[in-house]
């Protein structure tokens, strides 16, 4: 991981045309960008294409990056935009293929094995539930609740209004809650 002062130096060098600096930025953010792309698209092939396209766009427009946010946050926005384009293209072609074999690993240090197992189980269930959400709902909840992007940025990158983004966020959260913690009567209603 690149610390912010190093990142600022690398960004400045990349803006001045230093391709080595841009390469260093790619190396330090590619796993995060790929992870976001995977969470948005739901499959490896699309995630690779989206990540590659996102870095190409970033390379072409690095001079326009103002540096008022982290480079990684800027990359998340570009990735969201590329994923949105990719999903629109896909929805016109074939159906999304959702893979079950997530090779997710947790970098978070934990000390409580029991709590860790429980939290890990819930994370796995949330990951599965996210993958099963319709892409338009998944994109909003991933960008807001996982990556903490503001609503205006989400709306802008997905090409929707801010109020539409909020409505989708509501629906996504509700669907996740219903699936993970069904209230009495909801399971039955879903099964019908």
């Amino acid at each position: 991981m690149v610390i912010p002062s190093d990142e600022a130096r690398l960004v400045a060098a990349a803006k001045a045309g230093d391709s080595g600096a841009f390469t260093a930025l790619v190396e330090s953010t590619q796993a995060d960008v790929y992870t976001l792309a995977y969470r948005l698209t739901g499959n490896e092939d699309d995630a690779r294409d989206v990540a590659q396209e996102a870095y190409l766009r970033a390379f072409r427009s690095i001079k326009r990056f103002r540096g008022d946010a982290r480079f990684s946050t800027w990359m998340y926005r570009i990735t969201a935009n590329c994923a949105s384009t990719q999903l629109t293209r896909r929805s016109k072609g074939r159906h999304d293929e959702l893979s079950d074999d997530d090779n997710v690993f947790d970098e978070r240090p934990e000390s409580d094995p029991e709590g860790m197992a429980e939290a890990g189980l819930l994370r796995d269930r949330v990951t599965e539930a996210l993958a099963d959400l319709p892409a338009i709902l998944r994109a909003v909840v991933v960008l807001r609740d996982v990556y903490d992007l503001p609503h205006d940025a989400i709306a802008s990158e997905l090409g929707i209004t801010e109020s539409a983004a909020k409505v989708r966020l509501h629906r996504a959260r509700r669907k996740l809650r219903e699936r993970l913690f069904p209230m009495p009567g909801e399971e039955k209603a879903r099964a019908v």
Partner: protein
Amino acid sequence: MRSSRFFGSGGVSCDDVADALPGIVDGLEVADLEVQRHVAACLRCQAELVQYRKVLRTLHQLRTEVLEPAPGLLPDILAAIGAAGERRAIHDLLNGRRVAYVGGIAAATAAGAAGAILASRARRRVRLAS
């Protein structure tokens, strides 16, 4: 199905509150007073709010999980950027030449025009002198 029973004196139902909970859970929206009163008195809605909080907390935790991309991804990205960089360099070079070419034509045109003006003035002076 969720109960449509009304709780408290405000006439707000669990269904009404359920619609508001996904927004209330992280302060995206501020619950109005009637909803707040309902939640304070309704164990079912309190339980549902707790579940939303758990979902939200787990979603936040996903941020620390990183998928390991296939080993070929980084070289592919760098190759694509390298190709784009070369294309840009060629484009910049051609653009530079185009600018120089257009600049040359403009300079030649300006010089020609200035020459013509000077020649016409010189002819006029000769005519006046004679």
